[in-house]
């Protein structure tokens, strides 16, 4: 018998709020006390989107409120399953399994966390920022979010100065700003206050402005499209920084039973196929994207 027993909770979760944003993005809040209690930044939930769909859909967690027993999700309609999820109404119940997965690991000796989120890769980064804010250790996270559809929030000019930022790159995420956590946004769509480029371009500008001592305290955390994660892995290599990336893959069981969700990783004993659902979704960038 193994110690992982009874760590994933099936809950009938009432939908407390469900709002649509531009670009087919949806924000949902559900009542799921056990999941809220045990989730960590990087965990996801596996949702029955519809009674007629044989497979659940994995969605990463953006925030939890342990006292209220609620869980917030942000997702984008990607296929038939998420399209059905988008039709679910406030007051309805969803069968949800969670929290699932190996979460991000924070390291106190690496206080300067660079959080990089692309598109619906943003939610776990918001969770991680909040987790760092709550931690007793004084983490100094900085978040860079990129999106090619309108951001699912009204960007606000930042009141927090960040060294190395190009002229005019002032748009920030209000939620993080209110927590006193600096953030900046990037897009190729010309949104005001956003950096015209990729998240990794802005990350380089930030890293280049750090002195050697500060640089040695940086750890990178990222979630987003595969190409973005690949670029983040290269960035981490270039600056000799540790990086944790959260991966995505089609899933069936979501609990480690089927090996349907694997990603190839390099291990000391050679290549291995690791399950994104329980071995991940968070992996060492070096293992997934070797040089």
């Amino acid at each position, binding site marked *: 018998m193994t110690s992982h027993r009874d760590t994933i909770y*099936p809950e009938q979760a009432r939908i407390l709020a469900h709002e649509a944003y531009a670009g087919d993005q949806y924000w949902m809040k559900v009542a799921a006390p056990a999941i809220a209690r045990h989730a960590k930044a990087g965990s996801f939930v596996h949702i029955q989107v519809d009674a007629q769909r044989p497979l659940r859909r994995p969605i990463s967690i953006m925030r939890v409120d342990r006292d209220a027993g609620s869980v917030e999700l942000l997702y984008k309609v990607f296929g038939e399953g998420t399209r059905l999820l988008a039709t679910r109404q406030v007051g309805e119940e969803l069968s949800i399994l969670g929290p699932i997965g190996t979460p991000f690991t924070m390291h106190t000796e690496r206080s300067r966390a660079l959080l990089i989120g692309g598109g619906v890769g943003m939610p776990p980064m918001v969770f991680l920022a909040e987790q760092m804010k709550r931690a007793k250790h004084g983490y100094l996270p900085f978040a860079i979010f990129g999106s090619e559809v309108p951001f699912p929030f009204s960007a606000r000019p930042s009141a927090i100065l960040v060294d190395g930022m190009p002229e005019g790159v002032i748009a920030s995420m209000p939620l993080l700003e209110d927590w006193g956590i600096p953030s900046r946004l990037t897009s190729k769509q010309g949104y005001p206050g956003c950096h015209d480029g990729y998240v990794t371009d802005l990350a380089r500008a930030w890293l280049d402005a750090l002195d050697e001592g500060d640089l040695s305290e940086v750890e990178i955390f990222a979630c987003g499209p595969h190409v973005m994660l690949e670029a983040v892995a290269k960035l981490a290599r270039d600056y000799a920084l540790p990086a944790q990336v959260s991966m995505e893959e089609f899933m069936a069981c979501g609990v480690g039973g089927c090996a349907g969700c694997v990603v190839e990783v390099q291990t000391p004993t050679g290549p291995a196929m690791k399950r994104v659902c329980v071995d991940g979704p968070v992996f060492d960038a070096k293992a997934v994207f070797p040089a």
Partner: protein
Amino acid sequence: MNPDDKQMLAVDFCGLKMDSPIVLLSGCVGFGEEYTRVSGFSNRDVGGICLKGTTLEPRLGNQPHRVYETPAGMLNSIGLQNPGARYVVDKILPTLDLSETRFIANISGSTVEEYAEVARIFDDSPVDAIEVNISCPNVKKGGAAFGNDPEVSAAVVAMVRKATSKPIITKLSPNQTDIAENARRCIEAGTDAFAVINTLMGMAIDIEERTTILGNNMGGLSGPAIKPVALLKVHQVYQVCRDHGIPIIGQGGITTPEDALEFLIAGATTVGVGTALFYDPLVCKRINRGIVDYLKRHGMSEVGQLTGTLRLNQAKSACEVCKDDD
């Protein structure tokens, strides 16, 4: 569930005492511990667990994507990812609580000899039985599955028979012309039981990219979509098995108690649950409950009384369907 109700679910499956007719299917529950992550799930709710398909050498399996949802089902092309028989026996089996349920190895090979060797390794292990997955590509025959040919299927079973004294469950493929003939040959070769059916081969296409979705191009179809096919195959194999007292694990799309009952009536002694777990990890509790309620409603005291109670219509067309019934 109260002890009297529980007693109604007990079955004997080729000598294995099972507390429930439900068997968790190979490839869906890893090596028996994965689903215990889910709070409320218990290995004790099922009569047996078929472990992931195991080969002689470790296998990395296929490139992603490996799973894809299809209408009322899914395709999978895992490619038998497993750490090799030696590792399973030495490192994984000792971590299981063998008192919880019956554990059944599921073996695969790319040659007849490999099947025998894997069977020998499991013969000297605490597993309760060995399930032989003959749906694997036969390297010497250009990749056609062993299970598509009664001759080759029987050869595999005969080799495994020599390698083990544990009960052998032969898992039949639906991707063949005459499943009843195959079953007959496997009985002669010494199988103790059958698992009917394995997945049906299928494909999914991305029309924008004009590529196949699965990394391996094709995969096995499972879930409710295959249930009617599976029921017919169980019925056909049962005609052959009945007189030999050879039991069947009926499987393919079982999701509800009613599905399970259909398979039992068609001739299965136990019922397999795989894909349905992905939707509802606690589905076995519901199926157990539903079977008990049905048995009570029909004045039966144990689930075994249901097996093969199907009454066929006497219409000529119906007899042609089960042409193996003589």
